[in-house]
């Protein structure tokens, strides 16, 4: 019997230490597995448990899959203690992902906070593979401290292709860049905010203030794409954990345009 709750095995091929609290795991699925950017997977450790993650890799690379994971809970702590060649389980992909077709020909402002840059990296890699299709791509990224800045090497590489500005909430001695919340670098761009789209991913509080700022700047609610984080368990619209208003984040999201959410109370809690 085909079983929707069954995981399939994947081997951890490599582990990259990104920051003191974040690691990237390069997985090789044992059977065909593909996803579109912005969709999520359920990653499990046999006998221990399962949690949702959005891959951070290029969906066009079919043989491997990368997830960037912050150590925040029981399962992620166990994941962080793993070494290469261990077998984990994956299920999915689930949810809607980013609607790349709708982005074509438009200006795209991507705003990330903390580990929220991980799903956005997958989006960026998708965009890079056909960059001419998009009018303009900008990235604004904020991390807590310079040490917490994710994908540091990649950020400078990306800045050769697109307009990238980063900031940190708190600087240290060696740091020379912008200091302040990510909302403070949402300015000085020459894009037509009435027509542009924005894609936002980060901790709830960052998403909240970024969205309000974007509205202030003149972005239309239907052009603001938010990756919502809820307690997802089944990923299939069955277990009931991820409800927000009339939606299940796992199947109606995780990507929502703000116009769908703005009338639902307490969406940022």
């Amino acid at each position, binding site marked *: 019997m085909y079983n929707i709750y*069954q995981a399939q095995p994947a081997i951890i091929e490599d582990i990259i230490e990104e920051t003191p609290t974040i690691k990237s795991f390069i997985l090789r699925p044992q059977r065909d597995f593909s996803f579109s950017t912005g969709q999520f997977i359920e990653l499990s*450790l046999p006998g221990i*448990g399962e949690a949702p993650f959005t891959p951070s890799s290029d969906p066009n690379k079919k043989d491997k899959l990368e997830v960037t994971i912050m150590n925040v809970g029981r399962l992620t702590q166990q994941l962080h203690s793993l070494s290469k060649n261990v077998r984990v389980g994956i299920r999915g992909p689930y949810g809607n992902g980013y609607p790349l077709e709708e982005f074509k020909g438009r200006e795209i402002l991507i705003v990330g906070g903390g580990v929220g840059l991980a799903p956005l990296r997958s989006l960026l890699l998708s965009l890079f593979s056909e960059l001419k299709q998009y009018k303009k791509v900008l990235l604004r990224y904020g991390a807590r401290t310079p040490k917490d800045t994710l994908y540091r090497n990649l950020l400078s590489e990306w800045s050769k292709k697109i307009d990238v500005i980063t900031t940190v909430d708190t600087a240290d001695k060696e740091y020379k860049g912008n200091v302040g919340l990510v909302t403070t670098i949402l300015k000085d761009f020459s894009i037509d905010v009435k027509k542009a789209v924005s894609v936002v991913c980060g901790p709830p509080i960052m998403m909240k203030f970024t969205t309000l700022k974007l509205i202030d700047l003149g972005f239309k609610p239907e052009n603001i794409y938010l990756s919502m984080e809820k307690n997802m368990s089944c990923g299939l619209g069955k277990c009931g954990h991820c409800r927000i208003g009339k939606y299940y984040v796992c199947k109606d999201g995780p990507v929502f345009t703000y116009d769908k959410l703005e009338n639902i109370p*307490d969406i940022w809690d």
Partner: protein
Amino acid sequence: MSEIYYSQAASWKNFLTELRQSFRVYVPQKNNGDYLYQEYRDPVNFSFNSYRAVQPVKSFLFYTKEIIAEDIFTRDLNTEEPRPTVVVGLKNCDLHSLKVQDFVFKEGIEVDPLYSQRRENTIFISGDCSGFKEVCFCLALEIYPHPKEGFDLNLSPVSDGYLVEVGSERGRDLVGRYQKFFQPAKQTQIEVRESKRRGLIEELDRHIKEKDIPKRTILQSIVRQGYSSDLWKNFCLSCVECGACNFICCTCHCFLIGDTQIKDRNPRLRVWDSCQYANFARVAGGANPLKRRAQRLRNRFLKKFDFFVDNLGMPACEGCGRCIEACPARIDIREILRELAKVSPIPT
């Protein structure tokens, strides 16, 4: 035209006894003024239940705790083909709850394999209500105390036996296979059934009116409009977060997936969950949109009267009153709906 038969009480009992050769047969047994489903074993006496049983019907299809994958890496789920089951004694509220459970488990982006398999393998024989409990309020939700659809067979007590209405192909097959226990119903018997039904509706209607429960048509808007009301805080004060209201509810369906280790296997389990538990909505990073009890109580109402109305076109409450009886804190859904209607600006 509906197909209605008559089965004399003794024939009906013999029919159930014979069914046992091919099915697991569950019938309600009287227990301190309540009815509990039990597997039918001779010499169990069949007594027609005048109102719904204690257990929610979902428990026949979706177990409190069960293995949903033998091992996360084994592709196939090892379920022995369950013996077909016949459940006797559902009421119309129970049948309505199956619409909700079917929507969750059989529809949507994927089909739940265990639920669907059991659903296929279970025959439901419902019955008219011939009485009701103090907590019953189905009529307020526009659900009648006798079924019109959704059953395989439906029983209506008449003198010395039952009228048996066919509601599905499977029900028709069953009557066909056991013809000797059934005979065509007489028009006069059907008239008796109709007048009993009308009588009970009138009685129940008076009962509901006394309780002053708001009409089904305004439930969604009063729950929405009461979002910021203090009443959630007031009503949740005595809640001990036991989850009984969810577990006993025939429409609640939330579950948790958990992995365990048994020797060298890693079975995956599914366990009923309750939105009244503090960690229900907590994410790994620590954020918890349902941190407070008042938020969780409100969540139960939003899910039932807002989410399901938007997604399924009906509320996920059938007025069975099980949650009222199960709650150790005496939190009463009827009272909350009534108070919501009072604070809501819409005229009721």
